[in-house]
């Protein structure tokens, strides 16, 4: 019950902030859209006809969507911590009876709903712009997206934990942005171990739904189980790492510093 109250409060706060800072929200979307256009038309010009026949361009649309979703999911935690610390509210949320990690999970879940809606809106815009109409089977796409992003969130929690102790972790965040590009762009048949990392396997399955038109019920059970297991494992590891660094930060009295 207490978790639901917290989740509702976080969702309400997220909605208020998105609405009250509508210009900033819109500009973020415009920026993502412009970056997508540069990547898409750059790839089209560079690869030429082979891209269209080889399925590269639809892959770029799906990969870019998953990459931006991943970036927003993992950076949300660390940005939240940095923002709360600089705003002077981190110690207040650290005093929540549910504990700081769970507050951040609630914050992530609240943000996830908005992120999924925003990503789908952007996806429609990207498809309309590029003429690459993909299969929009929402009942298949949304659960896969949510589970995929949960694994990425684990990385976000770990980076957030580092931010609690070391404060400035921008360099790690920048490196991770490039790592996520590799996870969505590199082919899994050549790099099979990538499927055990966050994002890669989920991106692959979502690609099968959106590009190949396969429903989630037709995806083999072991494939779905692997996605779930990988995401839960990374989310769990991230949560454990974050909880550990939360204790370190409290022990060294670092929560109030930035």
């Amino acid at each position, binding site marked *: *019950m*207490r978790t639901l*109250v*917290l989740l*509702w*409060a976080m969702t*309400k*706060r997220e909605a*208020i*902030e998105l609405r*009250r*800072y509508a210009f900033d929200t819109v500009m973020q979307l415009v920026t993502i859209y412009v970056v997508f256009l540069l990547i898409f038309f750059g790839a089209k010009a560079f690869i030429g006809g082979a891209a269209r026949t080889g399925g590269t361009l639809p892959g770029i649309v799906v990969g870019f969507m998953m990459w931006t979703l991943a970036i927003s999911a993992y950076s949300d935690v660390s940005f939240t911590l940095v923002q709360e610390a600089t*705003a*002077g*509210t981190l*110690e*207040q*949320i*650290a*005093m*929540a*009876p*549910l*504990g700081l990690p769970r*507050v951040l999970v609630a914050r992530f879940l609240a943000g996830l709903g908005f992120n999924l809606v925003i990503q789908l809106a952007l996806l429609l815009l990207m498809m309309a712009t590029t003429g690459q109409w993909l299969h929009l089977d929402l009942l298949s796409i949304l659960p896969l997206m949510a589970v995929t992003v949960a694994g990425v969130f684990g990385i976000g929690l770990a980076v957030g934990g580092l931010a609690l102790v070391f404060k400035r972790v921008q360099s790690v965040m920048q490196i991770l942005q490039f790592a996520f590009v590799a996870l969505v762009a590199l082919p899994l048949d050549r790099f099979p171990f990538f499927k055990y990392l966050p994002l890669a396997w989920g991106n692959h399955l979502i690609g099968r739904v959106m590009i190949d038109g396969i429903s989630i019920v037709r995806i083999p059970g072991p494939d779905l189980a692997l996605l779930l297991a990988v995401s839960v494992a990374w989310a769990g590891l991230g949560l454990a790492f974050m909880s550990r660094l939360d*204790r370190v930060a*409290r*022990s*060294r*009295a670092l*929560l*109030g510093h930035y």
Partner: protein
Amino acid sequence: MRGDTLLEIEALTKVYRSRRRGDVRAVDGVSFRVGASEVVGLLGPNGAGKTTTIKCLSTIVRPTSGRIALDGVDAVRHPRAAVEKVAAVLEGNRNIYWRLTVRENLEFFAALQGLRARAVRASIDELIGRFGLGDKARTPARMLSKGMQQKLALACAFVKETPLLVLDEPTLGLDVESSHDLRVHIKEAAAAGGRTILLSSHDMDVVQDVCERVVIVNGGRVVTDDRVANLLELFGARAYRFTIAGPVGGPLGDALRVRFPLLDARSDPYRSEIDVELPDGAGFYDLVDILRESRSVVESIDRRDPNLEEIFLKIVTQEAPQGGAR
């Protein structure tokens, strides 16, 4: 201390380990208790260990050793259970969300504590009224004056409905009017809600006005734990000001300084004021005898009532009278 013990701190120690600078012992065996519904001041000079103590009992700093019991809950072993018992307004922090309105802040902090908006609606309305935020309820916090923001931070602590409230420098940076206003609100809210308050402040007027008892820490240790009224009486009863005609100097000045080394005398050609602390009755008559022998004309003798600030300064500079410190 009155009532059942709500906060019990025993041998609290916090050591910050540093390879470069060596260990820093911020809190060194602090022990005190606070009874239910008490309003207690936690005083001390900068670096005395007040904020570390406050953060330890708020669970945001983990102590090196010692015990903290909040309403019977061990805050060191079970911090999550303990934070249900304490809310804090921390020094130097905003403590509130500037993007949210007054009402939204109150609802958010209640939810953070696990309280549903519907269940605390009446309480939020009451706090908005009590803290004079009625016409600002829909105003984002960033648009409020500093005084109003601090009132909102206090209201956000009160809305959590915890039995203990910790207020670290709640009047810091406020103008005289806002500070006075805020202390009235603290007193009213404490009385109305029956809350226990631990208040740390450098503003001794606030402490003297709001607190029943003070715990003074210095160098990480408790040096005094007594009721404000007792301290004022203890120090007030022993401080006198003698006003005599003419300057104090020559043999009279020498005789006074030999017998009363801590005496403070100010003279002009027409009048002298002698401030002296006389811990026992004999000293008073000794002084009178010295003045009589020098044929000084005593114009007046006044018992001085030092305020809490003067008492605090004496205590932390280790001039506490016997029995004042525990």
